[in-house]
């Protein structure tokens, strides 16, 4: 029974990794931009929520209503003013610029909030659990997983059923032709990054409530996000969720065998998938 319990914990943890990864996947899918600062932007979001909770006394789930629009604006401006200038034939400029951004965000947070680890308090919810037969599940992990599914459903809806989604896909397909049709690619990209930052804010909420965070942990979270995206196959959000679940299950099972193996097991699972299916589980057809 302990194994079923462990696997369920792993699956639910996968939801958190999928939330980390969804924004990354969205931005990469639309503009082929690898955002190395994505993890740090999530941590920045966590601090925004933390301030809203401690200074304004808000419940963290309401604080997201402040953090999400702020993060959207930040992502929009970041893309419009900085990242759009790095896009082109050469893939190096966006990597360098976002790497620099990662350093800037980490040090800015360090300056503002010190290296002390912080936590967003969600009161009784943190430890609440429900039992299904002999299995007990935390309410928070369940909420995380449910949010991941909701985020993916909403993103897919936006992508395939709305005008802005069609503009995303048209621009991703052929930015030059799209601009001849009257689409402004730089605005479409800014909106996409804004949207990715809204997802990052949601990820930040669950990250901050689940465990301690400090300004330096962004890059480590980014690695899980990358692994989830790559396992899933670039550009498929449901694949990304599955990727997150695979890493989450590998980590909890690894930890159950030996606590030292938790992180390692996740990375090993990633490597195994990469060996068997180099293009991921759901590669986007060309």
């Amino acid at each position, binding site marked *: 029974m302990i194994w079923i319990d462990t696997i369920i914990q792993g699956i639910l943890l996968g939801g958190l990794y999928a939330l980390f990864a969804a924004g990354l996947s969205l931005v990469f899918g639309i503009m082929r931009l690898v955002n190395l600062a994505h993890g740090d932007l999530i941590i920045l979001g966590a601090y925004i929520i933390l301030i809203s909770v401690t200074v304004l006394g808000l419940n963290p789930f309401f604080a997201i209503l402040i953090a999400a629009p702020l993060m959207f604006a930040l992502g929009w401006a970041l893309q419009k003013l900085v990242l759009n200038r790095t896009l082109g034939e050469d893939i190096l400029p966006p990597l360098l610029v976002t790497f620099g951004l990662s350093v800037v965000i980490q040090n800015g947070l360090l300056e503002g909030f010190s290296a002390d680890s912080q936590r967003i308090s969600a009161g009784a919810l943190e430890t609440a659990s429900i039992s299904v037969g002999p299995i007990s599940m935390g309410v928070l992990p369940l909420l995380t997983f449910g949010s991941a599914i909701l985020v993916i459903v909403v993103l897919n809806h936006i992508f395939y059923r709305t005008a802005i989604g069609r*503009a995303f896909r048209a621009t991703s397909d052929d930015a030059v032709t799209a601009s001849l049709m009257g689409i402004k690619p730089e605005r479409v990209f800014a909106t996409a990054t804004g949207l990715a930052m809204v997802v990052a804010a949601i990820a930040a909420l669950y990250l901050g409530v689940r465990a301690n965070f400090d300004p330096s942990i962004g890059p480590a979270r980014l690695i899980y996000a990358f692994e989830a995206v790559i396992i899933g196959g670039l550009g498929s959000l449901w694949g990304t969720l599955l990727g997150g679940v695979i890493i989450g299950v590998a980590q909890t099972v690894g930890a159950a065998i030996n606590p030292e193996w938790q992180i390692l097991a996740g990375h090993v699972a990633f490597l195994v998938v990469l060996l068997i299916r180099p293009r991921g589980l759901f590669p986007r057809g060309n």
Partner: protein
Amino acid sequence: MTMLSLQNVSKSFGSLKVTDGVSFDVPEGQALGIIGPNGAGKSTLFNLITGNLMSDAGSIRFDGQDVTRVPPMRRCLDGVGRSFQIPQPFEKLTVFENLLVAATHGRRASEAEVTGDCADVLERTGLMPKANAPAGSLSLLERKRLELARAMATEPKLLLLDEIAGGLTDAECKSLIQTIKDIHAEGVTIIWIEHVLHALTSVVERLLVLDFGRVIGIGDPGEIMESREVKEIYLGIDV
């Protein structure tokens, strides 16, 4: 009424004059064909009309307004639609979505407003059976139809067709010509660049011959095709 009027329009790339003092008028509702050897400056002329290139000299009037310095997006909204020589559909979008994107952005309208019109365009261009197919899966004829449909979705007053009949079989060409004739019959003004002469002459009322960026003849298609200059310069026949 004159739909399009070019006065002494010139364009150079470095020392190469690709459009050299071109002047002509297209009355509303007319179909004008443009022929000329490769490199005569036909596509450049289209780019000048759509605004993708700005002319060095001369003036362009469209629908009663001077658009010489108007950017391409504005001209598209005002009613200049074009198809491309090499079809460039959004491959991963469905045929219908391709039209929706063109119509919403080309007309600054919401999807709800344009959905009916887009379905209408699909019907008229014979693409209805393919409405939900990804554009990447279309045959060449269907891609050409989509090019046409996408230009039509912006509800142009002036439709520019760039070698749309090239590469098609005779039967395919015939069915495409019929579609273009139908569009023309609705009153859309058309300028059509084409190497497939029989396709062109079966639709257009006037023919313009371009060579080295200059207009060397314009008038009735039959007379133009029989004229000495055209046979000499365009068809390469020594008269």
